[in-house]
């Protein structure tokens, strides 16, 4: 998303601004400890917020909305009861994809790419949870780091499956990402899962 104004910096910012932020942060830790939430599912619950609500609410309101949505979807609490007690409780939207819509993956035992390999990010029409930022889709980059294998976020978020594949640091020149508008001597490195990448033709 583009067209934002200045980044507003608050001097001497406290760790928490309001008591309820502290409480929702602690509550999240407690629910994660009890296995009621996992990271990708939680991130996806925030990504499903109404965009107007997302952009006009604070970070910890995102957390609260995402957590409440997941607890409703898992049948732990009811939306009606939340609504009644809070006098209105906006939740995230339902998922647009089901478990069967997730691209399948067959990761290898060894990393497919090495440092200095030239790669391209695959295009994709998948609208569920992903860790592939839109701005690198279809762009050409160079592997700068081979990292460990980690659970594929799409599978963990939508199927609760843990399938690991290698991830890479991939460097994109600003001109490749932004054309003539890209700055000189600037590059962005993005960390990408192996299934997001293909060898450059």
């Amino acid at each position, binding site marked *: *998303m*583009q067209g*934002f*104004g*200045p*980044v*507003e*910096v*608050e001097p001497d*910012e406290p*760790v*928490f*601004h*309001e008591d*309820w932020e*502290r*409480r*929702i942060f*602690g*509550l999240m*830790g*407690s629910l994660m*400890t*009890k296995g*009621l939430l996992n990271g990708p599912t939680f*991130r996806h619950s925030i990504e499903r917020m109404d965009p107007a609500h997302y*952009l006009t609410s*604070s*970070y910890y309101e995102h957390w*609260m909305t995402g957590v*409440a949505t997941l*607890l409703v979807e898992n049948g*732990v609490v009811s939306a009606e*009861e*939340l609504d009644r*007690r*809070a006098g*209105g*409780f906006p939740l995230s939207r339902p998922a647009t994809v089901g478990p069967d819509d997730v691209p399948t993956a067959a990761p290898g035992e060894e990393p497919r790419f090495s440092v200095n390999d030239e790669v391209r990010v695959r295009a994709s029409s998948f609208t569920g949870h992903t*860790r592939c*930022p839109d*701005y690198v889709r279809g762009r050409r980059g160079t592997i700068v780091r081979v*990292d*460990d294998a*980690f659970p594929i976020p799409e599978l963990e978020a939508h199927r609760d499956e843990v399938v690991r594949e290698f*991830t890479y*640091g991939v*460097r994109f020149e600003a001109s490749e*990402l*932004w054309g003539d508008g890209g*700055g*000189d*001597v*600037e*590059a*962005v*490195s*993005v*960390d*990408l899962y192996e299934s997001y990448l293909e060898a450059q033709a």
Partner: protein
Amino acid sequence: MSEHHTRAVSDIERRVEALEELLAEQGLVDAEVIDAAVELFSNDLGPMNGAKVVARAWVDEEYRQRLLDDATPAIGELGFGGPEGDHMVVVENTPQVHNVVVCTLCSCYPWPVLGLPPVWYKSPPYRARMVREPRRLLAEMGCAVPDDMEIRVWDSSAEMRYLVLPERPDGTDGASEEELAEMVTRDSMIGVARL
């Protein structure tokens, strides 16, 4: 504080209370875990930890090399690790290269060495603009990077978390490791400030 802001916060407070009540009624709120999590992030985790890592790298060349080669165990040597810090990468500023960290997809941040991220780091303007126009945004934030110095932006979009190793300031030859750590700011380790 404006009337609007006060009203908005109380809406949110009612929602948090409703959620807490419903979970408490089912025995799903563990007060000890909540207090421990808040205590940890309020007092034990923060940029003072990252500053110790940076200062050590400035005074100990072998440590600096270990840190750049494999950051997680090197940071672990100083006692720092855990969630959002289990897979660390340290990127080093040089006279030719300035590094800066962002998470465009959410707000990934190395908790054990920097604590919880500031609001601006999590804000849509920072996340959108740092990859699109880093030199201009850095200048706006008071961090002028010379036109011929390369800017490397690191988008922490998977599991690795980044810490910037700033350049040691000139004129600090006589400083002790503790004195050096005092000079290291949070913003210099995110890469939105230079020392």
